[in-house]
């Protein structure tokens, strides 16, 4: 089975959901024209990233009667979508969230579980922490979604893998940092390295979509990637500029790779559980 996957590394307007929705619809139209099956947008693609006190005013609920999501849900009848937004729950907690939309319905919402609150980041001050990591079924097989800092930790991708995800969709709003004599910023090198590593270790497809554009002095570096189950880079978007990066992924590669390299078959989850129980019971 083949899947046309596109990653929309867009720049957003900070706090202007309407303008960002318009851009989503434009990219969706373009992706549809070129035969995309699944289109992934970056973290907080509907709102912008450094929201601070704007959080409550840009929150939306992924429902059919929501003025933003009704358009996106309609568009998801033509192609599957992953969009980034601020999710407000019934008790008014605000989450950094990704929604997977398909066939006019919301298949899954992931709440970011790791909120970086150090260095230049201040997410924990403004957002609630997500508390679940779940894979879910799509028409392309089982998928898992993570948001930026989630995959700076090893456990969320590992849990998605054990929960059946063969396609991992990572989204980011990653500010560029660490200028050295090298051609790539340190932050880009780090993310590219771990994306490739997860694809290799979990013999899975790993797609990463990072936004571009500036917010004050922060530059988001883009550079969307798709790695295949062999850890080979299939496609990479440009740095620093908006782009729709597309590739066809052959889901049969999962079978070929895992026949050669049965890391999933041999993963000793009971041993992991036993040792985790021991380690965690000590503290």
């Amino acid at each position, binding site marked *: 089975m083949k899947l046309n996957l596109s990653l929309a590394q867009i720049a957003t*307007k*900070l*706090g*202007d959901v309407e303008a960002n929705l318009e851009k989503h619809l434009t990219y969706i139209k373009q992706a549809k024209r070129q035969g995309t099956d699944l289109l992934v947008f970056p973290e907080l693609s509907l709102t912008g990233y*450094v929201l*601070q*006190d*704007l959080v409550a005013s840009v929150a939306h609920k992924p429902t059919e009667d929501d003025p933003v999501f009704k358009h996106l849900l309609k568009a998801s009848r033509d192609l599957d979508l992953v969009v980034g937004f601020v999710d407000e729950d019934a008790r008014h907690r605000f989450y950094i969230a990704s929604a997977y939309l398909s066939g006019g319905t919301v298949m899954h919402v992931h709440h970011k579980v790791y909120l970086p609150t150090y260095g230049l980041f201040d997410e924990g001050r403004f957002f609630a922490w997500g508390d679940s990591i779940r894979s879910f079924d799509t028409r392309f097989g089982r998928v898992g979604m993570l948001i930026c800092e989630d995959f700076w930790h090893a456990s969320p991708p590992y849990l998605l893998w054990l929960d059946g995800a063969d396609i991992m969709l990572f989204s980011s709003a990653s500010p*560029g940092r660490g*200028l*050295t*004599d*090298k*051609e*790539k*910023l340190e932050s880009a090198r780090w993310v590219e390295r771990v994306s490739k590593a997860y694809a290799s270790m979990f013999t899975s497809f790993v797609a990463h979509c990072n936004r571009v*554009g*500036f*917010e*004050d*002095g922060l*530059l988001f570096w883009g550079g969307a990637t798709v790695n295949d189950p062999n850890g080979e880079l299939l496609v990479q978007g440009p740095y*620093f500029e908006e782009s729709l990066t597309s590739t066809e992924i052959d889901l049969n590669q999962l079978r070929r790779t895992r026949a050669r390299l049965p890391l999933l078959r041999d993963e000793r989850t009971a041993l992991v559980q036993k040792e985790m129980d021991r380690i965690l019971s000590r503290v």
Partner: protein
Amino acid sequence: MFDLTINTDVAHQILVGFIKSEVTRVGYSRALINLSGGLDSAISCVLAVDALGAENVFALRLPYRTSAKDSLEHAQLIIDKYRLQSETIDITDMVDPLIKRDPNMSNTRKGNIMARVRMIALYDQTEVFKGLPIGTSNKTEILLGYSTLWGDMASAINPIGDLYKTQIRQLARAIDVPAPIIDKPPSADLWVGQTDEGELGFTYEEVDKVLYLLVDQRYSPQECVEEGFSEKFVNLVITRIRRNQFKRMMPPIAKLSNRTIGYDFLYLRDWGT
């Protein structure tokens, strides 16, 4: 460990993108620079030209009667190279009446007056040219506080404030800033014979290494000494950084209400753009 080398292509791409984005998103298309004839303003100017086009960059030369002649000439090299619109305003008539009020005025006070008068002239021209003033302060001087508050530090955006002076030199060579500007000793040119390094008491090359270890690499003072820097020098640098924190902030507001600007009224400048 002391390698401050930067990839100048990446730096140039990011800084040009920054100027373009941050000027245009607030509805402007033009920028102004106080072109002193020194390296920092030359590099900010070239970056602005690359971001907005030469026709959209206005250069101001603001000499005082004691300013070095080659400062004007070096500024002109940039103006000629890019065929920039420019104006030269002698600030002597604005500065001297204030200086004459106190015969015992120190060089520091005089220098501060000049820097602040230049700021007034720059901001005044922003209304005429309909553009934003671009900053020219580098990371070394911002950390050391070697600048005048509300004077040469004043700008709408600063593309070069995260580059140390030695990195500025590297970028300048890569983007073809005229050699005489790169090669001359850095000077605020506020009085005759002034040089930055003479006034600071150390070279940029030395201090940039210590700043890089302390700030970028989070070395402790003791670890800097173990890397071969004198304790006295390290402590001098740390003291300068700490004592000049006030120059790097907006004035703190005394909190009274539940929501106070600066503490819990938090929005980026790019809010809504």
